[in-house]
């Protein structure tokens, strides 16, 4: 068990009362702002002491209020990447990176500086001062600094939240590599569905200080009711696929999934490699017959398994496409006109151009689904 948390903590008139366990490779703590995500991660890191409860990570009990146990943060061996990088301004990038090494017993040092520098692509920054780095570079150095302390668990508190879209796109692949190439379990705080859908193996959904749901990413992402209102438009199905072939002539990549072939804009990923795609519910159309004369390239046959009322005039339709779930958001008017009801065979239609870069990322390697 990677992380076990069962705590109750009061902050002013807000109470975090959370209980969850996760053994995932990258567990996302997901929820709107003010839901207690950062409080939870600070509790795991030891930056705050819970009023009551128990926290264990990687088989070691860190906090047990009944037993009066509280391991201070510098003895936890838990790395933390903060939203605001928090690099040491008076040290060079190289000294920042090496800082945690001093405090790690030699026998427990597994992180190798060259490997980490290469993984994060920060070799050309080593002699610089933090003040001379861009936001994205700072965040990569902060990740490297945390890794080089050879932590047993890595916590990331909204590491992309203060970056613009371009910088986010620059860092996301590094976090994917971190997830797939190192063995450190990661707990990742985010309020962005795009990030969670792309990165997480498991999701813990927090609402008003309580755990609303937890489980594998695919299962959680289908539950549009769990998503905060402002992010609901981003909600949709997450499919784990693999690259079947590249169609260079048209600039497309064909992915194989349970639901069938999916065409997305050309990816650099090699054939056979896992790719995770997110299909936003609002990008999915429903046809009652196999459409003809249509520009959209992805037509996935499926059965309606769920119909839920959505925001305003919309309904959310859940389709079972040969074992993979695809969500569609359409208007109630369309539902009635087409006579959509549970059990009906329909076709989900998705435009290739709706798969932008934020929606297609490296999939988790197969052993993640053990």
């Amino acid at each position, binding site marked *: 068990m990677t992380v076990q948390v069962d705590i109750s903590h009061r902050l002013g008139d807000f109470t975090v009362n959370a209980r969850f366990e996760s053994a995932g490779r990258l567990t996302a703590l997901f929820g709107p702002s003010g839901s207690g995500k950062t409080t939870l991660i600070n509790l795991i890191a030891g*930056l705050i002491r819970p009023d009551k409860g128990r926290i264990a990570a990687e088989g070691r009990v860190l906090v047990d209020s009944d037993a009066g146990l509280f391991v201070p943060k510098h003895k936890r061996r838990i*790395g933390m990447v903060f939203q605001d990088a*928090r690099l*040491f*301004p008076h040290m060079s990038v190289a000294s920042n990176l090496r*800082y945690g090494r*001093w*405090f790690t017993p030699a026998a427990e040092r597994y992180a190798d500086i060259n490997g980490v520098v290469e993984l994060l692509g920060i070799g050309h920054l080593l002699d610089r001062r933090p003040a001379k780095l861009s936001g994205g570079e700072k965040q990569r150095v902060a990740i490297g600094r945390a890794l080089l*302390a050879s932590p047993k668990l890595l916590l990331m508190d909204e590491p992309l939240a203060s970056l613009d879209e371009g910088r986010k796109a620059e860092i996301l692949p590094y976090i994917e590599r971190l997830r797939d190439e190192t063995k450190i379990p990661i707990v990742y705080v985010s309020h962005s569905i795009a990030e969670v859908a792309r990165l997480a193996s498991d999701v813990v959904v927090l609402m008003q200080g309580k755990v609303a749901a937890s489980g594998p990413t695919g299962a959680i992402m289908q539950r549009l009711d769990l998503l905060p209102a402002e992010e609901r438009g981003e909600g949709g199905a997450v499919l784990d696929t693999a690259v079947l072939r590249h169609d260079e002539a048209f600039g497309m990549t064909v992915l194989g999934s349970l639901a069938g072939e999916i065409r997305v804009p050309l990816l650099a990923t090699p054939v056979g490699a896992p790719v995770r795609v997110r299909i936003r519910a609002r990008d999915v159309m429903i046809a009652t017959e196999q459409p003809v004369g249509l520009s959209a390239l992805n037509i996935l046959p499926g059965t309606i398994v769920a119909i839920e009322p959505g925001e305003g005039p919309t309904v959310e339709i859940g389709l079972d496409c040969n074992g993979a779930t695809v969500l569609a958001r359409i208007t109630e008017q369309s539902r009635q006109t087409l006579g959509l009801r549970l059990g009906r065979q329909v076709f989900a239609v998705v435009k290739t151009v709706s798969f932008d870069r934020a929606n297609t990322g490296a999939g988790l390697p197969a052993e993640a689904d053990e």
Partner: protein
Amino acid sequence: MNWLLDLAPDEWNAVRLSIKVATVAMIASLPPGILIALVLARGQFWGKTLLNGLVHLPLILPPVVTGYLLLLTFGKRGPAGAFLAEHFGIVFSFRWTGAALACGVMGFPLMVRAIRLSIEAVDRKIEAAAGTLGANPLWVFGTITLPLILPGLIAGAILSFAKAMGEFGATITFVSNIPNETQTLPSAIYTFTQVPGGDAGALRLTLISIVISMAALVASEVLARRVGRRMDIE
């Protein structure tokens, strides 16, 4: 120009003594200064206002009063003076060490203020980050807090040094005006002004006093700028 450089041995001694007293006062005040500044900047305890007031007392009291209080406390028959003399062989009364103590106490509020301000400017989140990397609180202080407050530390030290160079009232009240032992520059200047024909000597020492103080100020500026450039905080 000869009259300017031709210092009598006693005058040279006053210059040397002043520099020694000011340097010792500055260095000896640094550790307690940092500690008190840390406590005032970060501590949450009952009596903090009282401690703050106590530290600032030498700034608002007439120096003669501070000197007299030192005499009562650290003089031969004073409780602290008797204890230190008996157990550690440290004697303050009518010694240059007493002058250093008086100067240190007078400069202490200035030093604490400067250091306290720089500690309050340190981002505690950066210290927390160092903690998550495995540094215990002592290491965090040594490797993060101390380097970050270095400019404030330098400013505080120079203020204390400058104050010590100019301290007169408390020193003369506590340890009197003994040539070669407690006669610092201000005392020596004062003595010159009290005797007929002492004008030249007083002027000489005054100029020296100005030169030393200016040199200290310039040195601190240069040092602070170098440290500032090294840190390059946004």
